[in-house]
């Protein structure tokens, strides 16, 4: 009896917070809800319609798409290369531990570390480039046209070690006999990776891709402490826009509409891997 009561309490928490709240969020997105406790009026699709052509939303959407189109495949590609590298050398565990380190650091703290890296006057990257003989005076996160690339560099630093680990686990799960057999047949290392290992990595790559896609749409902490969405609104992403609209602008109706769109977007990525596997 005690077990059932405790489990019931746990599930009540789970369903209330995770599902009832998510549904409630959808309801709020159809209301005009400004300020903390107004008398909400039905607003139809107006919250959604008002996003259309609202320039911060356009910027945020484009930047989020930028991350899914560039950051995700690039990180995946880098991680596959690093996983192959670690598979080839001894001491892979040692390097793996170092490469994973950034993922253990809080994204908000990482954002602060990188704001010093990107500091234009005597920040780490510009200083390193100067030591190497370049006349570097690059405004990494102050230049509007550069800021999203700089953010992407930081995000790659934070996630690629973890993604490498997912891929590496996939490589290590391939039976060693298969690889040995093709070695005896005289296949080159490159050929073994292309014809034997890569095709069997489908599952691991799909897992990594899914993780990165969801990471890219949720990203908030790192950008919040690094640029705060600036300069101006140049590095707005959906997460930053949602926060500013809801908790700075106190327009909860519009904020909920943004959140609902983000959930729909993430749900697509929940369903795609299921389709691919069938």
């Amino acid at each position, binding site marked *: 009896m005690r077990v059932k009561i405790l489990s019931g309490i746990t599930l009540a928490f789970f369903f209330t917070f995770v599902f009832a709240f998510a549904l409630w*969020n959808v309801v709020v997105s159809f209301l005009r809800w400004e300020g903390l406790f107004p008398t909400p009026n039905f607003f139809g699709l107006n919250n959604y319609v008002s996003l259309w052509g609202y320039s911060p939303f356009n910027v945020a959407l484009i930047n989020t798409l930028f991350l899914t189109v560039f950051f995700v495949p690039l990180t995946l590609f880098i991680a596959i290369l690093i996983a192959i590298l670690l598979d080839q050398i001894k001491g892979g565990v040692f390097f793996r531990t*170092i490469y994973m380190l*950034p993922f253990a650091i809080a994204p908000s703290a990482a954002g602060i570390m990188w704001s010093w890296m990107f500091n234009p006057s005597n920040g780490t990257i510009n200083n390193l480039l100067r030591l190497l003989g370049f006349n570097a005076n690059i405004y990494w996160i102050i230049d509007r046209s550069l800021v999203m690339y700089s953010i992407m560099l930081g995000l790659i630093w934070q996630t690629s070690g973890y993604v490498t680990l997912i891929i590496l686990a996939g490589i290590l799960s391939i039976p060693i006999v298969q690889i040995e057999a093709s070695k005896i047949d005289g296949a080159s290392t490159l050929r073994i990776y292309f014809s034997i290992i890569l095709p069997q990595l489908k599952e691991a790559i799909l897992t990594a891709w899914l993780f990165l896609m969801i990471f890219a749409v949720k990203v908030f*902490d790192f950008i919040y402490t690094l640029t705060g969405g600036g300069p101006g609104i140049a590095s707005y992403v959906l997460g930053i826009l949602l926060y500013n609209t*809801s908790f700075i602008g106190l327009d909860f109706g519009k904020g909920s509409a943004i*959140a609902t769109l983000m959930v729909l977007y993430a749900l697509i990525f929940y369903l795609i891997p299921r389709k691919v596997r069938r």
Partner: protein
Amino acid sequence: MKVNLFLYAIALFLAFFYLLPIWSCFTASVKTVEELSTTSPLFLPWRFNLENYIVAYNALKEGFLVSVAVSTATTILSLFFGSVCAFTLTKFKFKWNPYILGLIGLGVLMPFNAYLIPTVLVISAMGLYDTIFALIVVHFAFGLPTTLVLFTSYYLSIPDTLIEAAKLDGASDWKVFSSIISPLSGPIYVVVAVLRFTFTWNDLFYGLILTKQNRPIMTALAGLKGGEYAFAWNYLMAGTLLAVLPVLIVYILLGKYLIRGYMSEITKVQ
């Protein structure tokens, strides 16, 4: 052999890239303001200026206490309720159990953005805004999908025959849980504990939207960057290192479990 040396060179270069931000954070944290602009961020100063750490600690100590309390309480609650609930979901033959398990999997992938606004409204309406209690409840509840996924997948690997044998001897459900399941759960308790502690400690967002004075460590740190220490990089970097230190220690000592937690969170839901 030549190829091998080349590969090690690349591996070392990558290690340099991954460690550089942490290293330059450390060098800045022991410099004076003048040294920040006159010396290279790559190198340590001649004399360590440890006063930065005292300043940063004083600015962040309330945040430390809040985060210690919230992370510890969240971890304990998650271990206790999570394991009991997962036990019910896997070892009792309720007909809706498979559906609940499916929904838990979906819950893992639900972006946290979905619950933010209702959370703020409910917490404020209950008068819990700016309390440690609110942070604990929220972290416990939103951590549940992952916690339950980890526990249920572990319990599925414990054979049912063990439990049936105990039940034939007349053991109650609670007795089965506390004397059979729980002692077998050591590794998964560590995985969940490490994961929950880390996530709660690293949280910025809930601190941002649910607190004003009682801010957890990461929110307090972000506040320093946006506020009084905006350009005092030496203080800011010392504070950043202090803030990430507990999780870094966990990662170095228990990294294996942390990684296992991360991995199952992403793979078990599919």
